[in-house]
């Protein structure tokens, strides 16, 4: 198994409050890692730290991605290197056409890879195919980015972006929150289709349901800004039965 990301003794603060207190975590190429933990454990902060959110200040430790420390890289550089996060709350950007945004993002990536940009017609063909796969309406091509989308549509739009950008490392930050069962199934199917043995997924969730659809290779339990336990799906079973107290204090 090849490590795609190694997180070593990671300490990080938001507004001068330390949230991550020494995370050690290895993530493997082609695997699905589920991150669970009680509210305030630092799950969302961990994902924000990986993608370089400006609110997060890293005070100690490193994140090696493909062997390179990415702590000082700009968010867009990390994105171009293949790190993608499906947001828990995708923002609305009025007046910015969804298709235009997606093409700009894809062409930024293609430029980074030394590939020629896709023109509008080529891109539209790609986009329409992906929309069909995801069972999304074509009208969303013409709509403004996330504006007026329902909760489910926003999450599907995140998945659409993932499919178009074909990242190597995908963080799904509570993608299951606010999804009905049909939408959850569609999102899960899309993720499973993207599991190609190379692409790594980090699924942050509170609930077991999504892990029934997307089977994780590893489950990590976070508590108080540290990784409390690493194992397989059996950790989730224990959690379901008895709650986080089952893991006690390490």
């Amino acid at each position, binding site marked *: 198994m090849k490590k795609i990301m190694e997180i070593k003794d990671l300490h990080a603060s938001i507004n001068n409050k330390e949230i991550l207190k020494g995370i050690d975590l290895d993530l493997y190429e082609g695997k699905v890692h589920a991150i669970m933990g009680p509210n305030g454990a630092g799950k969302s902060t961990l994902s924000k730290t990986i993608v370089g959110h400006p*609110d997060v200040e890293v005070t100690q430790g490193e994140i090696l991605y493909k062997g390179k420390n990415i702590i000082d890289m700009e968010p867009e550089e990390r994105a171009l290197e293949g790190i*993608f996060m499906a947001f828990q709350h995708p923002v609305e*950007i009025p007046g910015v056409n969804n298709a235009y945004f997606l093409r700009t993002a894809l062409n930024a*990536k293609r430029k980074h890879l030394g590939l020629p940009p896709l023109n509008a017609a080529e891109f539209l063909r790609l986009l329409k195919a992906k929309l069909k796969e995801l069972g999304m309406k074509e009208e969303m091509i013409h709509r403004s980015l996330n504006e007026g989308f329902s909760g489910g549509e926003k999450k599907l739009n995140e998945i659409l972006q993932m499919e178009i*950008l074909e990242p190597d490392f995908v963080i799904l930050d509570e993608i299951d929150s606010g999804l009905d069962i049909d939408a959850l199934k569609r999102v899960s199917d899309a993720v499973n289709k993207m599991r190609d043995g190379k692409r790594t997924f980090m699924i942050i969730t509170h609930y077991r349901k999504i892990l029934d659809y997307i089977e994780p290779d590893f489950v990590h339990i976070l508590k108080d800004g540290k990784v409390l336990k690493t194992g397989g799906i059996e950790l989730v079973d224990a959690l379901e039965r008895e709650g986080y107290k089952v893991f006690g204090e390490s």
Partner: protein
Amino acid sequence: MGMEKVEKLINSDYELGFEIDIEEEKAPPGLSEETIKFISRKKNEPEWMLELRLKAFHAWQKMEEPHWAKVTYPPIDYQSISYWAAPKKALESLDEVDPEILRAYEKLGIPLEEQKALAGVAVDAVLDSVSVKTTFVEELKKLGIIFCSISEAIRDYPELIKKYMFSVVPMTDNFFAALNSAVFSDGTFVYVPKGVKCPMELSTYFRINAQNTGQFERTLIIADEGSYVSYNEGCSAPSRDENQLHAAVVELIAHKDAHINYSTIQNWYPGDIEGRGGIYNFVTKRGLCEGENSKITWTQVETGSLITWKYPSCILKGDNSVGEFYSVAITRLAQQADTGTKMIHIGKNTRSLIVSKGISAQKGQNTYRGLVKIHESAVGAKNFSECDSLLIGDRCGAHTFPYLESKCANAQIEHEATTSKISEEQLFYLRQRGISEEDAVSMIVHGFCKDVLSKLPMEFAVEAKALLDLTLEGAVG
């Protein structure tokens, strides 16, 4: 990281701030009857025009500079300004246009002949006080369309000038309009005869070049019954340490079933972050929808000037006439803009639409000021206004002053206003998708302005979008 960086992004250089090295003839600073006679003489004007100018001057002397707008600036010394500057050589044909000027226009991205010819645009260019060259005149003439400098029109079409000039903006309308009426240097005149749809975009490019000079152009556009014309103006000025005054007047008249589209891309020198240099832009623009079913559309993209005081307006006199105002105003550095529109509903079933987008960054202060006035006679009148403000950073300001007056019981007035900030979350979202911070800011701003930019004629929309990017971009990091 974060918003400070965004501020840096929008702190870009003014790329049109060069000076054209040509020999200029300039009137000595100061304003008196002598100055006005000098201007009138230089322009070979008929006696009646001089008399009108002097009348305006005497009225102006009794008027006071208005200070109700939300802008502050040191007192203007009207005696220190030169009211006339012109390239020394007389200009008859394009061959005689000083190559320096042509090069300057090229640098400005306004190819005077060939390139605009390809684009099908007729151009009049006004450098300081004189119209440098009007292209396509002959072709337009075949259709009966008059497109010339206002000086030529005064000499060649006195009846039209006497009938229409001052008819929409009276010479004593306001302090700056009166000043303009006294000293106006040049500008553009357009007449489109009955039933003629002008087949090309008409365009004027204004540039202030000479130092310590004011620019006072005057534009008059008449669309006769059933005609259509689309007119565009652009402007720029060199970077200077002193402030320069620009006080223009634009009058539009749309007769029955006529439609005038008037677009402006205003890019006068904005001054620096401390407010040094930069143009004082005090402009009176007004259109009269004289006839039934007439329509006037104002579209403006305002990125320049230190101070902007400008309210392109429509008087909706004809029944079923329509007035529209689409505006994007960006204030950054130390710029202050107080801009908006007036929609005066007089005729029955008149309709007006106002879409205003203000963007403020750095120390910029952006004010929307608009009046919707519905007279008793305007039965069935409708207005819709939308005023949105976007703030970038925490040192800028956005202000909205909508005035609504209705004397008609069944009129409908709707007003919507929003103020928002470019949020960290929006920026971060786009950057997480691999889009650079600079492109992300540009994308958000373009999205915000979309409803207005889509109203510009295509070639000018391209120019406006490029200008927006130029205004927003800068040295990263």
